[in-house]
C-alpha cells in the first residue's frame, strides 16, 4: 500500500510534499512505470503533478517560449507555437515512443529522467533552454546543460520540482533539424540523435550553428569545435565531413544491447552530412 496524491494546485502540492517528505513526484508516469519493474521503494508516497493546470501551459513570454513541465508530448505536437517556432523540438516529440506514450509522457519527465537518450534533450541543448525549478520558497533557473549532471542525475533538490522549460525564441534561423536513429521506426530508444540549428546566408554560408547529439555520451553531447569548423563556410559535404571527423573523435559512446560504441560513433558524425541535403 502506498499513498498517491493528486494535487490540483501548487499550493496543495507543497502541502503534500510537506506532509510526506519522502514522496516521489511524477507526471505521466511513463518512466516511473519502467522503474517499478526493477523494484521500487516500497511504501513511499507518490505525488502526481499532471492535474496542476498551470504546469501544462505552452505560451510565449516575451522573447521566450515557456513550456510547462507537465505539457505532454502530444500536447506539444498539437501546439502551433511549438510547431512554428521550435520545429526541431516539434519533430523530436512527434517521434517519441508511440501515441499512448506521447499522450502520457511529459517534457518535465523527459528532462528529469536525464537519460542520454531523452529525445527532447538535444533540441533543448541546441536551443540553450533553461529549466525553471520551483519550491515553496520560490523559483530558480538553470541552463539545461547545468541542470543535468549525468545519466539520471540532475540538480533538483529535495522538495523542488521542475515547473517549466524556457526556450529563447530562435531568431533568424533557417535550418532547424532533428533526426533520431532507433532500431525501428516507432517505439524505439534513440541509439544516436542530432539536433541542429543554423543561420545560413543566402549563399548558404553558415553564420551561426548549434549542434547537440543524444545517446553518444553520458549526457547530451555538444561540440563547439565542430561548430567552429562549420561557421564561415558554406554548408556543404566537404565542411560537414570535416566536422563529422571531429565529432567522431570527441563523442564518448557506450556499447550496449542496442548498439555498439563504434556504430554510435560513426553515425554521430554521419548525421551531420544530412544537413547538406536540407533545403
Amino acid at each position, binding site marked *: 500500500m502506498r499513498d498517491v496524491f493528486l494535487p490540483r494546485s501548487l499550493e496543495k502540492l507543497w502541502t503534500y510534499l510537506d506532509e510526506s517528505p519522502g514522496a516521489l513526484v511524477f507526471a505521466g508516469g511513463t518512466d516511473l512505470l519502467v522503474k517499478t519493474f526493477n523494484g521500487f521503494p516500497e511504501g513511499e508516497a507518490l505525488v502526481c503533478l499532471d492535474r496542476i493546470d498551470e504546469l501544462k501551459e505552452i505560451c510565449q513570454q516575451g522573447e521566450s517560449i515557456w513550456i510547462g513541465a507537465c505539457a505532454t508530448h502530444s500536447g506539444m505536437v498539437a501546439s502551433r507555437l511549438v510547431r512554428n517556432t521550435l520545429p526541431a523540438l516539434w519533430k523530436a516529440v512527434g517521434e517519441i515512443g*508511440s501515441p499512448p506514450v506521447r499522450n502520457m509522457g511529459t517534457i518535465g519527465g523527459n528532462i528529469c529522467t536525464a537519460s542520454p537518450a531523452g529525445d527532447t534533450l538535444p533540441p533543448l541543448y541546441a536551443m540553450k533552454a533553461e529549466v525553471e525549478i520551483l519550491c515553496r520558497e520560490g523559483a530558480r533557473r538553470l541552463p539545461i546543460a547545468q541542470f543535468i549532471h549525468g545519466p539520471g542525475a540532475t540538480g533538483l533538490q529535495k522538495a523542488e520540482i521542475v515547473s517549466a522549460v524556457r526556450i529563447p525564441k530562435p531568431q533568424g534561423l533557417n535550418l532547424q533539424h532533428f533526426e533520431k*536513429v532507433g*532500431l*525501428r*521506426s*516507432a*517505439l*524505439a*530508444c534513440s541509439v*544516436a540523435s542530432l539536433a541542429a540549428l543554423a543561420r545560413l546566408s543566402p549563399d548558404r554560408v553558415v553564420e551561426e550553428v548549434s549542434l547537440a547529439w543524444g545517446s553518444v555520451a553520458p549526457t547530451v553531447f555538444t561540440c563547439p569545435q565542430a561548430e567552429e569548423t562549420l561557421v564561415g563556410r558554406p554548408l556543404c559535404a566537404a565542411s560537414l*565531413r570535416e566536422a563529422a571527423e571531429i565529432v567522431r573523435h570527441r563523442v564518448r559512446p557506450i556499447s550496449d*544491447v*542496442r*548498439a*555498439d560504441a563504434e*556504430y554510435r560513433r*560513426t*553515425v554521430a558524425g*554521419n*548525421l551531420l*552530412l*544530412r544537413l*547538406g*541535403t536540407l533545403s
Partner: protein
Amino acid sequence: MKTTMIEVGYPAARFDARSKVSGEEKFAIDYSREAILWAGARRAAMAHAMVRGIDTSRARALPGVHAVLTREDVPGTNRQGIIHKDQPVLAGSRVRHCGEPLALVLAEDRDVLEKALGMIEVDLEPLEAVFDAAEALGADAVRVHESGNLLHKAVIKVGDAGGAFDRCDVVIEDSFEVPGQDHAFLEPQNGLAWQREDGRISMIVSTQAPFRDRFEIAHALGLDPGAIHIVSPCLGGGFGGKDGATVQCLLALGAMRAGGRPVKMVWGREESFNAGYKRHPVRMWYRVGAMRDGTLQCIHCKLIYDTGPYAHLGVEVMALGMEHACGPYRVPNTLVEGWCVHTNNPVSGAMRGFGVCQATFGIESMMDLLASKLGMSRLDIRLKNALRRGDKNGAGITLVNSTGILPCLETLGGHRLFQESEQWKKLAGPYKKRGVGIAATWNAIGYGRGLPDSAIARVELTREGKIRIYSSVSDMGQGNSSAFVQMAGQILTQDASHLEIIQPDTDLAHPSGSSSAGRTTYTFGNALIAACEEMKEKLLHRASLLLMLDEPAGLALLPGIIKHLPSGREIPFDLLGRLFPESDRMAVKQFVMPVARDTLESENEFKLGFPHLLFSYGAHLAYVEVDELTGKTEVKEYLCVTEGGRVINPACFDQQVHGAVVQGLGYGLMEEVLTRQGKILNPNFTNYIIPTSMDVPDITSLCVETEETTGPFGMKGIGEVGMNAPLPAIAGGVEDALGCRINRSPLTAARVLAALDARGVNR
C-alpha cells in the same frame, strides 16, 4: 447479429470476429476458478552446472506458500519431449541451459510466489559450457549430454553431386548465418489445472497440441494418458511456440500436489523468453553448380542447427529445412548434409517456417549470386529452374500434386511493382540507395512420412437444432475454426445462426494432430467434409422418415430446416434434434494425409517427418531503401504471390500472408535473440525488437489458384510459406542497392553500415 450465409470462397468476416473484438472470447489466460494457487518455477540462470543442492526450507516456511517441489517430488520419468524424451520437468542433478527449472512453488498469490521463488537457495557448481554449434561438434568439446553433442546427423542425396560439379560451367560457394527468433506471441505460455475427485487432471492451457499433450504429460509424470483432460481455448498466438509442453508438465505436477485446488501458471514475458524455445540458429554453407544458360546442375550444402540442450523438435525441424534446402527448383544432383547439435544455448524448437526459413535464406541468396555471375536476371534464373508438376524436387520426390511456383513467379514478373523497379530505384533521394529483391519459396504441409497426419472430425445436430462442430485442432489466430464453419455451412447450406464450433476439448472431440505444419485446415477440413456429408445424408434420411417419403429425393437442406421442394413441406432441425437420440445425431469421420510414394536413397535418414508430398509456394518482391548515413534499411513496398490450391476465404488467406510477411520482415531486419554465455541479453520487448505498424509497408498479397485435388475444397495450408521469403528478398534488395551482400541476418542498421564502411562508401 446479422445472419449471413456461410459459404466457401467468400471473404466473409471470421465467424468469431465479434467475440474476439468484444472481448467475449476467452483465452486460456482468462480462466480462473475459486481458490486458485499460483505456480512458478525457480530457474537456473546458469547455462551449465551441477546441482549441489537446493534448499527450499526458507521458502516453505513463508506464510502463503502451499508447497515447494523439486526433482524428488516428480513421479514418472521426469522427462518431457515430443519425440525425444530428454527434457527434465524439474532438473535434479544437472543444469543445461539458463531457463532450466529447478523447483516449483505453489503459493496463495503472486506476490508470495515471487518472494518464495527468491528464497529458494540453489547451490550450483558451474561447468564449462559450449555455446557454438560448430565448436560443439569438436572431439574435445564440452559435453552437454553424456552421449555427446550430436543429436542427429543426416544426409539427403540425389544423383551424383560430387561428379556433377565437374561438368558445370559455373560453381559458386558461400556461407550464411541466422540467429534465433522468438515467437513473440501476445499471450504468454500459461494454463490452469486441477485434479478432480476421480483423480483425473483437467487443464485449460494455451496449446497447439491438446491431444498430444496428454501423452507428453503422462510420460513425464508416470500418469495414464486417459487420466488427463485438456481444454484448448483460442490462443493469443502460437507460431509453433506452443507446439509441445511449456507449462503443461509443471502444471500437472502442481495440480497433483495442490489437494484438489486449481493451480494457475502464467509465464511473464522474460520467463517466456528464457524458458520458452526459439527458432533454431543455423549456420549454412552452400555450393551450387549450373550451366551457362542458368540450368541448375548440382547443389551441395551443409547446415548446422543449434538445438540447445534438448531436442524438442530439432531433428524434425532440421529434416524439413534439409528437404527444402535446394529451393523450389529442379536440381538433378543434390547433397544436403545436416547436423543437429546440442549446446548450452536456449532450447530451440518449432516455429512457423520450421527450419525452412533458415535454408531459404541460403538457397535464395545463392540464386541471386548465380544470376549475377551469369549476367542473368534474378527472375529469369528462377523461372528457368522452377519446379513443375511431374518434376522431381531436390529431395527426390516426384511432384504429382499441385505445384504452383511457376505461376507465382510469372505473376510477380507481370506485376507493376516488378515492371517499375528500375524507375523506382532511380528516384532515391540523397544518401539513400534503393534496391529490389525477389525470392521464391515453398513450404511442405503435413507431418511427412512416418507419423500419420490424421484428424477426426465430429459434427452433431444439437437438441436445439444447431449444427455443432467439435474442432480437435486449436485455433491460434490463423482462423481455422472459421474455415471449418465455412465448410460446414457450404455442405449443409446453413447460415451463421445455425452453426457453432467448440474449441478442442479432449473429452468431447476426437483425437487429432496438432495445429501446425500447414496441416490444420487441410487435414481436419478433409475429415470435417466427410463428417458433414454423412450428417447431410443422415438428416435427409431422417427427415424423409418423418415426411413419410419412400426416399429422400426432392429434399433440400436449408438454414435450420429440411424442405421437401416438390410439396413445400418442412421439418425444422430442432424437431429432429428432439426426436433422435444424441448417438444418432452425430457423424464422426477421419482423414489421414497422403504421403509421398517415391523410394529414396535417403529415406532412412529420419525416422519420421521426411519426406513430404504436398507443398505451398510463394514468390515475393521487396522494394528496399537503405540510408547510407545510418545503415537503416526500410522496406517501402512488398508484393507476395502465394499458391495454396483453392482459397476457402480470401480475406483469411490475405491475413495469413500479411502476418507471415510481417513476421518475416522482423526476422529479416531486426529480430534476433542475443545471448552471452547462453544467457539471453534481450529477454523482453524493450530490446527484442519486433516490427511496429510504422515498420510495415503496404503489402500486396496476390493469390495464384491451383486445385489441390486431395485438399478440402482444393486447398492447401499457407500459414508458413509466407514467412520464408522476406529475409532473402530483403537481402537481395540490399545487395541490389549497395552492391554488397550481407550473409548474416538480421540486416540491422549496424550490419548494413559496417558493410558500407567496409566498401568505403561514406568516408
